């Protein structure tokens, strides 16, 4: 495939969803089937195009393939901005992932959202979302990345708030946008720091500038941390993770799209793209934030009962992994995990969507509007009723838990190897692998808890059980596709070793060296990972086994009672169950005080400053004019003027006859005036 074709394809991939969006938003309602075929047609076309690009990448087999194109967006002389695309192997892979997940979401939504009042709107927003994400993926500069970044925020706002009649959905949408904006502030400051030092927004020029030593030291660290802050917001890293679980208020397919391929992936993608500019200090921050988030979110996921909430925290935790890997330098492993995670996490969400869909219909039939269709405590034993969903979710769960033969094993292993290698070089940072392995164990535990509670054991609501049915084809099709893609083979081709991540991915997608002088080279990092590979594999297998075993004893065999243990570890349980009270504390210590402060400011502005100070001028003016009025009237007028007047009255008894009403008198005085003036003038 030639370079031109690549560019044309990329443009098409970028703009087709936008066209679909525009068609849907303006005339969607008037089209047959509310125009969902427009949206689906558009994404399927992008999928085909992405596959074409991807195959050409595989055939071409150029690890350092890169193609750029740009145009002048604005130009004021010295200040000019070029926007453009960068297409390399990472981009092509990411485009495929986005197109694939987006297509699956579109297909899945046909039935899931059937009969929704804003069906065409929904498809429109999906198109916008896909467009924005593709924009991020294709960007070759910070400005267009930032722009699409915010557009992703908006589309997530619109989709999370799809059912805006529910206050919780409206709240969640707003929260998602605002929390993301917090990150975006950091992102923007980072951009400004870089631009004010290097004068460019284009990645390659930035990297060149940094390698040339034009920017470095603490400024670069700050810039890096700022940019990472943006990633933290989008990828929902601690402490900006709070929006993501709430975002479950959106329709489930949206969650799948958002958590697998678009929104949250954007943060990781940003780190991957910008990896060369992070300084060691910035990377350390990234590593710790990521590692901590991985563990922290996992501990919350253990105790959640809402099936989507579990998956949400699991996403946060997995994103933590990816960020951790960026921090340790093994960012290609992080990207690898991004790709594999996209498949199995989307599959898990579709699975949960399928379950919720079934529950919803069953509840609807029973006219039960009280029970929560998402609560796992109302499920159980769905395995026989929903075999396809069950198997798909099981495969994905095995993948996410890091069981060999599945994709998650490969990528997770690479990340953990990266942390191990990092820790071996920097023994002071031993916590990073601890975070990683700890999270791995807990992940295995809670994911199997989900499987066991939902699909195994006795049905918890017997009355519903008979009405639970497997979902229609439109919903099972994505499940089948994505669960198949969670098998190792797709990532190791053309090799078949399930224990080695050696394959097309590792061959075609290669790390570039850090631009910051002093950072370890890509080769060096790859070496370290290779070195730690087997240790990591053994350890991760062990922790995964422990997690699965514990889960099995608690929730399958019920040898140990979960409730009893919860009672024993009450404080910890409470912390975890309540998500460490983050929302409450943010609310109490940030939002409410700030709203109060705003009210105070408004009060000061309007009721004090304006009313007393500004109007004070008016009032003082009034008082002064009152006094001057008094002085004028009582003092000047009554005493002096009237004094003159009074004295004049006596004399003026005569003078008043001046006003005789006789024109001739007036004329006389006018003439007198003339004479006087002439006399005065002549002197």
């Amino acid at each position, binding site marked *: 495939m030639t370079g031109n074709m690549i560019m044309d394809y990329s443009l098409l991939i970028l703009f087709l969803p936008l066209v679909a969006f525009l068609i849907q938003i303006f005339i969607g309602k008037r089209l047959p089937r509310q125009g969902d075929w427009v949206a689906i047609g558009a994404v399927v076309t992008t999928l085909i195009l992405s596959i074409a690009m991807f195959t050409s990448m595989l055939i071409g087999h150029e690890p350092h393939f890169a193609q750029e194109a740009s145009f002048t967006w604005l130009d004021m002389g010295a200040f000019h901005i070029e926007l453009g695309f960068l297409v390399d192997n990472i981009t092509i892979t990411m485009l495929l992932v986005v197109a694939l997940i987006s297509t699956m979401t579109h297909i899945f939504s046909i039935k899931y959202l059937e009969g929704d009042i804003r069906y065409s709107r929904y498809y429109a927003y999906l198109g916008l979302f896909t467009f924005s994400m593709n924009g991020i993926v294709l960007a070759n500069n910070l400005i267009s990345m930032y722009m699409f970044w915010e557009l992703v925020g908006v589309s997530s706002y619109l989709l999370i708030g799809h059912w805006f009649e529910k206050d919780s959905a409206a709240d969640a949408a707003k929260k998602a946008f605002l929390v993301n904006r917090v990150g975006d502030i950091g992102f923007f400051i980072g951009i400004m720091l870089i631009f004010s030092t290097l004068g460019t927004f284009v990645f390659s020029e930035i990297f060149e500038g940094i390698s040339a030593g034009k920017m470095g030291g603490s400024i670069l660290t700050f810039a890096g941390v700022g940019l990472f802050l943006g990633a933290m917001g989008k990828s929902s890293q601690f402490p900006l993770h709070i929006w993501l679980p709430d975002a479950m208020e959106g329709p489930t397919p949206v969650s799948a799209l958002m958590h697998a391929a678009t929104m949250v992936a954007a943060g990781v993608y940003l780190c991957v793209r910008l990896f060369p500019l992070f300084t060691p200090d910035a990377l350390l921050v990234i590593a710790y934030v990521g590692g901590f988030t991985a563990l922290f979110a996992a501990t919350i996921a253990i105790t959640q009962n809402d099936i989507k909430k579990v998956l949400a925290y699991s996403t946060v935790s997995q994103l933590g992994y990816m960020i951790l890997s960026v921090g340790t330098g093994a960012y290609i492993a992080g990207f690898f995990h991004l790709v594999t995670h996209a498949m199995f996490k989307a599959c898990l969400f579709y699975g949960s969507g399928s379950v919720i869909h079934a529950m919803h219909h069953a509840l609807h039939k029973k006219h039960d509007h009280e029970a929560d269709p998402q609560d796992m405590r109302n499920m159980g034993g769905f395995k026989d009723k929903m075999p396809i969903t069950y198997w798909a979710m099981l495969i994905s769960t095995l993948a996410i838990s890091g069981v060999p033969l599945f994709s998650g094993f490969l990528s997770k292993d690479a990340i953990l190897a990266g942390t191990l290698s990092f820790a071996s070089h920097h023994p002071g940072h031993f916590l990073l692998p601890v975070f990683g392995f700890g999270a791995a164990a807990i992940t295995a535990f809670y994911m199997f808890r989900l499987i066991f509670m939902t699909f195994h054991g006795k049905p918890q609501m017997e009355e519903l059980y008979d009405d639970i049915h497997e979902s229609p084809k439109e919903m099972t099709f994505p499940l089948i596709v994505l669960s198949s893609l969670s098998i190792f083979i797709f990532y190791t081709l053309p090799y078949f070793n399930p224990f080695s991540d050696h394959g097309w991915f590792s061959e075609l997608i290669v790390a570039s060296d850090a631009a910051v002088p002093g950072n370890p080279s890509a080769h060096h990092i790859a070496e370290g990972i290779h070195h730690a590979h087997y240790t990591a594999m053994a350890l991760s297998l062990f922790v995964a086994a422990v997690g699965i075993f514990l889960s099995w004893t608690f929730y399958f065999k019920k040898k140990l009672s979960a409730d009893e243990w919860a009672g024993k570890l009450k404080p910890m349980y409470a912390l975890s169950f309540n998500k460490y009270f983050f929302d409450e504390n943010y609310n109490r210590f940030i939002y409410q005080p700030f709203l109060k402060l705003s009210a105070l400011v408004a009060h000061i502005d309007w009721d004090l400053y304006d009313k007393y100070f500004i109007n004070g001028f008016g009032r003082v003016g009034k008082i002064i004019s009152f006094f001057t009025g008094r002085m004028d009237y009582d003092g000047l007028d009554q005493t002096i003027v009237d004094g003159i007047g009074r004295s004049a009255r006596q004399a003026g008894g005569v003078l008043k006859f001046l006003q005789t009403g*006789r024109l*001739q*008198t007036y004329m*006389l005085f006018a*003439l*007198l005036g*003339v*004479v006087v003036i*002439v*006399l005065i003038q*002549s002197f």
Partner: protein
Amino acid sequence: MADLAFWMIVLLTLVSAAIVVLNRNLVYSAIALLFTFFGVAGLYVFLWADFLAGVQVIIYVGGILVLIIFGIMLTNRITSVNISHTSVQKSMGGLVVLGILSVLGIMIFNTPWLQTEFVEPVQTTATIGTLLMMDYLLPFEVASLLLLAALMGAAMLSRRNE
């Protein structure tokens, strides 16, 4: 001789003008005004304005003065013996007028008037006629319009409104 005639005419003009403004009897005033007009006409003659002198006599004496006398007749009962009237603020008025006069006089005698050599006119009437029809045609027409308006206005005003 000419000098004597000149001063006689001046005297006639001024004295009769004084009578106009000072005499208590309106009819006397009107008759004095007649002499003033004649005097002024005479002065015009001295100033080589023969045409104007004629006009002065015809219009002022023949027109305006007759009008004034009619005015007196119409507004006073002719039968009443004393068609007289009083004056007011004579002293004050006299003072001011004297002031004005002195101011004017000072001005007249202190101003170096621009004078050019006297050229004896060939024929004043013809020149005036040419000027009126050529250079001053528009004012001439306006003046006729003014006269028409005055005519109509006077008729309008003096009509009894029933």
